[in-house]
Each structure stands twice: as structure tokens, then as C-alpha cells.
């Protein structure tokens, strides 16, 4: 079973290599990793998908990531109700005859055509990883020229505030001010 982690880290040079190096050091495989800015300046949020079925080891990777100084918090989204989505762009070669069929598939799998001419179309797919996967499968009947996938992103359902890093806001000081002033 896959394990999906939400990792909040300090936004600074090299933090991505710290996270990926640590996961590699602990002998886990990264299936996908998405990183980006968040609503708070100074914090980068990552969604890391690991391919580790063993529950004990899953717990170990969470605990050991938390030991890194740059990591504010780690949430195991596998354990709690959360939305996990993926985004993909697919470029399909089309000819006049096949065009109608491609459009039929497009209607079935809820994707957008973001570019198209006589020769090729770029389709935009979003959804559960499985949805994206099956849409790509369906499109494979046609000549798929290129695929780019984002990897999965996760957000905890409901009262998500409970699942954010707890930062001490009471006593601002020099070391944390550069992070906290953005809150």
C-alpha cells in the first residue's frame, strides 16, 4: 500500500535535497514528490508518496522525518480522511477520422482540451490517481506523444486547521522572526 505524507518544511535553499536524501538514507522509495509554496510565506508544503506497505516502517519514516531541523511537521494523509489528487497533461496525435472519438473519451473522463490542431491535442486531466491513470489508458488507443504528471497532492478533509504545524507565535525572537513575520 502506498503512503502519502504531507510535509511542511522551511522554505530555504537545499531543503528538497535534505528531504529526499533523508528518505533515501532510510531506504524508502519516493513514488512522487510535489513541492510548492503555501498560504504562508516561508513555508513549503510537500506531498510525498512512498511505496512502503509495512505499517511499522511507515511510522518510522514519519518519526524520522520529524527529526530533521527544517521539517515543521509531517502528517500521514494515508491515516486520515483526506483528498488526494493528481494533475496530468497528455498530448495525443489525432487525424480527422479519430477526432470525434477522442472528443467522446474527453467527455467521459472529464478533461479539458487546452490546445489542439489537425495533428495533435493537449488534454488536461485531474482527479484521483486512478482516474488519471484510466483516462491515460483510454487515450492510449490513440498515439500518445507526451505525458507529464504532477504526482499526487494531498489535503486533509474537514477541519484542516488541526493538521497544520504548530508554531510558537508568542515570543518572537531573532531566529524565528524571519519565518513568523510572514504569518
Amino acid at each position, binding site marked *: 500500500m502506498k503512503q502519502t505524507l504531507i510535509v511542511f518544511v522551511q522554505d530555504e535553499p*537545499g531543503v528538497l535535497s535534505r528531504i529526499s*536524501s533523508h528518505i533515501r538514507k532510510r531506504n524508502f522509495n519516493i513514488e512522487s514528490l510535489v513541492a510548492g509554496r503555501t498560504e504562508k510565506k516561508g513555508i513549503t508544503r510537500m506531498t510525498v508518496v512512498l511505496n512502503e506497505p509495512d505499517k511499522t516502517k511507515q511510522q*518510522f519514516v514519519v518519526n524520522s522525518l520529524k527529526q530533521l531541523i527544517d521539517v*515543521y511537521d509531517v502528517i500521514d494523509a494515508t491515516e486520515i480522511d483526506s483528498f488526494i489528487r493528481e494533475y496530468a497533461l497528455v498530448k495525443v496525435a489525432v487525424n480527422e477520422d479519430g477526432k470525434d472519438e477522442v472528443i467522446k473519451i474527453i467527455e467521459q473522463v472529464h478533461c479539458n482540451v487546452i490546445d489542439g490542431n489537425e495533428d495533435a491535442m493537449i488534454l488536461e486531466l485531474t482527479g484521483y490517481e486512478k482516474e488519471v491513470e484510466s483516462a491515460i489508458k483510454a487515450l492510449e488507443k490513440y498515439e500518445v506523444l507526451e505525458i507529464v504528471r504532477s504526482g499526487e497532492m494531498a489535503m486533509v478533509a474537514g477541519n484542516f486547521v488541526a493538521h497544520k504545524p504548530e*508554531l*510558537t507565535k508568542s515570543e518572537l525572537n*531573532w531566529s524565528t522572526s524571519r519565518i513568523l513575520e510572514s504569518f
Partner: protein
Amino acid sequence: MNKRKLSGAEIIWECIIREGVDVVFGYPGGTILPTYDALNKYKDKVHHVLTRHEQGATHMADGYARASGKVGVAMATSGPGATNMITGMATAMMDSSPIVCITGQVSSSVIGSDAFQEIDITGAAIPVTKHSYLVMDIDELAPTIREAFYVARTGRPGPVLIDIPKDIQNDSIDYIYPEDELILPGYHPPEDISEDYISKFATMVNQAEKPVILAGHGVLLSNACIEVMELAEKSSIPITTTLLGIGGVPDSHPLVLGMMGMHGESWANHAIQDADLLIACGMRFDDRVTGNLKTYSPNSKKIHIEIDPSEINKNVKVDLAIHADLGTVLRHVNPHIIKLDRKKWLDIISGWHHDSKRRDILNIKSDKLLGAQVIRKIWEGTKGDALIISDVGQHQMLEAQYYKHDDPRTLLTSGGLGTMGFSLPAAIGASFHEKDREIWVIVGDGSIQMTIMELGTAMQENANINIAIINNGYLGMVRQWQQMFYDSRYAETPISSPNYVKLAEAYGMNGYRVDSLENVIPTMEKVRKNSGPSLIEFKVEEHEIVYPMVPAGADLHEMIQRPWDEVNNNGQKQEKEKVK
């Protein structure tokens, strides 16, 4: 607070002096030159030890940290200076030793251009440090150094690297030392946690019939020696230690069984396998202490008190995990422990004890000097009161078995990483803290040759250390494995040595050679009269084997014991096949 205009280089010294540092181990070079230039202004406050290799500097800082409990500081230049520190940082990482390594870096404007002596040490250090910093702005310098020391010494201690480009050292600003409370949002050393565990802990101990305490390095790091003994004595629980836990509990105490694990005492391993409760105190169930995990202490419940939550349930599943400072936990629990004498359990252990004592190598009358005898004599000669720094290999295990440590922080050794060459530099580092204690380096002929150049440092600093080289002409532990598991096919394990006596003399120190048991103590007496470093080479039996031994991956109770015929023949060992 007065503002002063200071250079980055001066800020480095100001900050480390603020951290209480009075000795730094290092080696100058191109990109750290500004900092060494500024050292001239701080010479009355900080003593700098010029090492012969940057690896030596890190081991010295490590040895100093282990002996003192304070943060050790090592300094080097960029490129090769920095990469030479990696082994030392990894050693400190595996053994939770607080050191701060400061490296120069090429100027920030040329970082990334493969400039002369440029290496991405901040990146290279990621897997071998608790954290690594690259300071790209002089405003960040003082806060970063302060943060680095805080991270190194708190929680589970460890090495921290600070990489400082040359232009940052040359730049200057109005310097104010940051005085506010330090809070790192991503770093939470455990605080005094809830006390829910107390009654469960106490009940488990009070109901157990065959409990064993496993005392690890955490006993020393948490200064919990008294608390652990209180728990043991109150409830009559036998204690066995890990290699790094030695000294945390007094070896001469009747409840202390000695070391556990691969070369641990057989009765200690039997006690673990037979126990119904293991109380793991600041240890991490390393593969060298557990043997085969599937059959490890199969009938016991397990309590694990550990400061690093990622160690809990990593190797061994436990029934009660307490993520907190060991001393604090035991202070809470001990009042709830019932007094018990556990006579039955202790009698069973004594039975095992008696059996294996008969196989002891010290019962053998050998015509050649044995490594184990040398170490036992050093113990007698120093009345068990010396600070011992052992290296890695057979002599390290013999030291753990035959030198009885009664005081905390009297044995320093590279346990987790098993770094050959650790002992000599670590002893030099430790000598800056233990100025009045007798210090002995116990080292093999293989290990000493890995960092032998630090004899020069020992002389230059007139370090008060005694070096005992246990010379058996082999990389003994590797040879032992080849003998036992590779049908005595010795591949590259015979090793030649220089004439150590002449070598010592070349360095300007007193050197001695001993090849008989009678001469051990008299030579030690001579050495003790010398001030500064001395060296003794002990020529010992070549084919000595460290028993008992749990082969890697075997069950912990399946120890290979010394064969009876070796003991009964009283040293008339069959002539081993000589190797060309």
C-alpha cells in the same frame, strides 16, 4: 548592549566563546584564513590545537565532547579539509556526540563554479550530521552559530556543520549577540511529558519475574546513572549494558552483568533471552546487540525509554514506549517501584555466570602474552580509575570484557560507526577536559596506523596520554571472521608495523616494548612517571580469538564459546596454520 563593528571571522570566535568553548581542534587553509587571522585576538580565551589531519580534528572534538559532556569544536578549510571531516562527523552522528564543525568555503560569489578547493560540504554532510548550515549573509552568522550549538547539544546530541564562505568572514557588521530565547519551529527536544506511563511502567516492573535492564549510551547522555541504579537496586533487577553504555553503571556492582550482544557476556545474553521484561534505557536495539530479531528475547514485554522517537519500534516492537529524557522518567517511576529481592532469577543468572567463567581466557597459561591479559593488567595497574579510549577491533571487545569501568564517561569508543583510528585523536581531545586523570589509549596495530600522524599533535600539545598498542600482526577482528566463517582463508589481514619504539622516539616521546606478562605492570609504572605522551607496544599472541561470539544474524543465545580443549590444555593450543 554595546554595538561593536566586528568582522565575520571575529564574530565566529565571539560566538563560540559565548558557548563556553575554550579549545578548538583544527587545521588552517585558504578559505578559513580570515578566521585563523582573527584567532590571534582571542588567543587568551581559546586554545587552538593544530591537528595533523582534519579527521583527527573531528575525533578530537568528539573525544572532548564525550569526556566532558560539552560541545566539541573542529575547524577546517574548504574542499579536502571539509571532506576529511566526514568520517568524524559520521562517527559522532552514530554515537550521538555533540560536535560543531566549522568549515571555510569559497567566496559566495563563486560558489557553484567548481572553484579551487570548492566542495558542497553542506550537501555532502546531510546524511552524516544532525543539521548543516551554509551561511550566505553575515547577519545570519551569529544566529546560525548559536542555533548550531543548541541543536548539537539538545535532544539526542549530534554533529552540526557550519560552512562559512570566505567573504562572509571578511565582511563586517555591528555585532549584537542575540540574547532572546531560542525557539526553532521545526525542532522540539522532548519536554517533561504527561505522566500517564508511570503506573503502567511500575506495574510492569512490579509484576515481572525475570526483568533485565538494558543500559545504553542514553544513561550517560541523560546523566541518569543514579536513577538507573536506584531502579535496579530497589527491585533487584540485573543490568546489562551496550558497548557505549559501559561506565553508566558500575561494573563491580553485583547486579551489573557486563556487556550484552555479539561479544557480550554469555550470561547477559542468556538473561536477555530468558527475561520476561526488558527495560531499555537510552539504547537503540542495534543489530550488534540483538542478533536475530525474530528470536530476540521472545517471551519478554518491553519498555523503551528513548529521547529520539524515530528509534522507537524501529528494530524491536515494544509494549510501552516513552519518548522522553531518561533521568526524568526514572525519577517519576522509581517511587512507585516495590522492593523485591528476586533471588530465584538472580540465582539462575549466577549459574550461567559460573559456567562461562571457567572458559575465561585468563585461565589459560599461554607462553605468549595475550591481549586480554594486557588489558586486565592495565585495569589492575590503573586500579580501574583511568579514562580509557579504545579503538575498533578485537582489543575493543577485550577492553569491554576485561577492563571494569565503575565511573561514567571513563570509556570512550566508536561504537555505532566502528571507526578505526578513532582512539588516538579522541584521547588527545579528551585530555583537554580530563587534565588530572590518567588516560590510556588501547589500540590495535591496524587502528593506530590509520591515524598515527596524530602522534605529532600529541607531542606538540604535550598531551598527557599513554598509548598501549596491542600488536598481534593482524587486522585481528577481520582475521577472526576469516578464521571462523571463511575457513581460515586469510585475505589481506596480516599487517606489518613500523618499529613503534623507534617511531615514538622519532616523535620525541618515550617508547617501550613488552612481550611478557611480568613486564606489563613495571613498564606501566615507568610510563606513569613520564609527563606528556608515552607509547608501549605489547607484542601479543597472533591467533587470539574473542569469545564468546554471536555470529552476525544468529540468535542471541547461540553464542560460540571458547572450546573446552583450549582451556583444559592450558594454552597448549594446536599450532595454527601459519600464513605466508
